[in-house]
């Protein structure tokens, strides 16, 4: 009744580079007497009844909470064949909403990537007073309610009595109830994502290679482009994809700052809500389907990258 599986932790043993004394173990200790005699140390995992029970509970939970509901959305989208989708894609207002969503997301991702890389480098490579506080504050956007985000931006950039908004709007620059506001809100909510992926990787890579490059005469830009960037490549992509998914999907914050003006400041997520509440269930499902598709693609890409990121 008990199944047996084998797990190769030879690689783990080999990867154990630093013992507590800082002694390099891998190459020295595990060198075979003759090459080719290397035996993988496999550890057998006995499958008990508990294993099957846990597996069942975990899978059932995920099935009823995520898998089945999501598949139903897909099913409902195609309940009337392709007509819901084609109706959606031939509606010019809908296309405008989709376009807006994509444009906003791309801008947000670019801004957050630039800021993210810069911030990550500053946090890891330099020392300055208040660093820990800054690092903690950067995490704030992840824990703040999207409605609060929207409110905060309205209070500062709102045209009527925003702290800066009045001045901005007087000079013809409308933020709230216009696209710039949506962009700001989207940047806000996805801000930490790239930084949080880069910081651990930068720490692990260490500064030696960069110092070596500098000593060979490379300036900051060259060092970054040729040495740092390749090292953080996978973590960066990972962070970018995550923030893309987040940016495309923002709802609450965008609802507050957009005013939901049809054709102008309506995003895909706002469109889902509107269509559903206006009894255009087909349209709501179709839009949702597109968003699900994007989200799943992002996750699949990310899960393919994760092993590459880990191996670094």
């Amino acid at each position, binding site marked *: 009744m008990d199944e047996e599986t084998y797990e190769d932790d030879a690689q783990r043993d080999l990867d154990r580079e630093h013992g507590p004394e800082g002694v390099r173990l891998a190459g020295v200790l595990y060198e075979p007497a003759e090459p080719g005699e290397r035996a993988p140390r496999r550890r057998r995992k006995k499958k008990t009844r508990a294993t099957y029970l846990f597996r069942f509970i975990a899978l059932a939970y995920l099935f009823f909470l995520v898998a089945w509901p999501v598949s139903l959305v897909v099913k409902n989208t195609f309940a009337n064949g392709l007509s819901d989708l084609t109706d959606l894609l031939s509606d010019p207002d809908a296309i405008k909403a989709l376009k807006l969503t994509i444009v906003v997301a791309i801008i947000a991702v670019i801004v957050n990537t630039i800021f993210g890389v810069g911030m990550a*480098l500053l946090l890891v490579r330099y020392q300055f007073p208040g660093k820990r506080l800054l690092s903690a504050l950067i995490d704030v956007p*992840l824990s703040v309610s999207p409605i609060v985000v929207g409110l905060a931006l309205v209070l500062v*950039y709102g045209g009527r009595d925003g702290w800066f908004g009045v001045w901005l709007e007087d000079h013809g620059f409308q933020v709230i109830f216009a696209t710039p506001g949506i962009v700001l809100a989207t940047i806000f909510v996805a801000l930490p994502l790239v930084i949080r992926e880069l910081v651990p990787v930068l720490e692990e890579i260490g500064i030696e290679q960069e110092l070596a490059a500098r000593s060979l005469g490379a300036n900051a830009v060259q060092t970054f482009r040729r040495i740092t960037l390749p090292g953080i490549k996978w973590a960066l992509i990972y962070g970018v994809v995550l923030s893309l998914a987040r940016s495309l999907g923002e709802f609450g914050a965008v609802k507050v700052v957009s005013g939901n003006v049809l054709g102008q400041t309506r995003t895909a997520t706002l469109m889902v809500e509107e269509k559903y509440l206006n009894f255009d269930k087909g349209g709501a499902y179709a839009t949702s389907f597109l968003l699900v598709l994007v989200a799943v693609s992002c996750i699949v890409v990310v899960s393919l990258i994760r092993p590459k990121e880990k191996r670094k």
Partner: protein
Amino acid sequence: MVLAVASEGRAGRTKRLGRPGHLTKVSGLGLGVSLIWFSLLVLIPLAAVVTTAAEGGWDAFWHTITNEQTFAAIKLTVSQAFLVTGVNIVMGTLIAWVLVRDSFFGKRVVEVLIDLPFALPTIVAGLVLLSLYGPKSPLGIDIANKPSAVTVAFLFVTLPFVVRTVQPVLEELEGDVEEAAASLGASRFTTFRRIILPSLIPAIAAGAALSFARAVSEYGSLVLLSGNLPFKTEVTSVRVLSSVENNNTEAAAAVATVLLVISLAVIVILDIVQRRMSRRG
């Protein structure tokens, strides 16, 4: 996933040489620019919320918070968040365990399912849950507009958090520690209770904090699923939104400040947990 808690601890251990240096002119400038940007986007707006809330003085603030409908919303939000966090602590750890210790066909799909709630727009999450737990449910379960809708929505959006903080810690656990416990006579359960679980507690705490903060902030998934019925299924963020829509920015700011205080508490906890984890080594 995003959560750097465990991985920062790990990076601390494997950190190679390289102490952070002092700011140069270029990096100092970069820091200045970044700080200005960050302030304009995040710090100043959030400060505006707190300031606006304080504008009417403590009495006005308290009056807003203790408004019956608002208070009910806060109570509902916090209690549901606690409940859901409790479930996540158990289920999250269990799912992480299955992911790390078990192997079966289709594990990749499971990983995607776990990350899906994080990547999915919240409004779509609401629609997704409505398909299975709403009026047209193939299961016959209809919780739309009921308090349990809030629970299910919270469970959905907070799913990844504990799993993703616990998973890397479990992966890093060295097998010989469990073997050592076995050789000393500990049963599998005793080994889990005395040896494995203590190592997991910081990670679980971090995940729980994130899960709680996320639940308390949730809005989008509840719009379609819970109906936002006052005193029954209305959560705090909905109250903030209605105040905004009524141009009552002071009331909105007051309630928003309550939410911010909760988020702040979460971040403080996370920071403490991170420090404890890197000390352990």
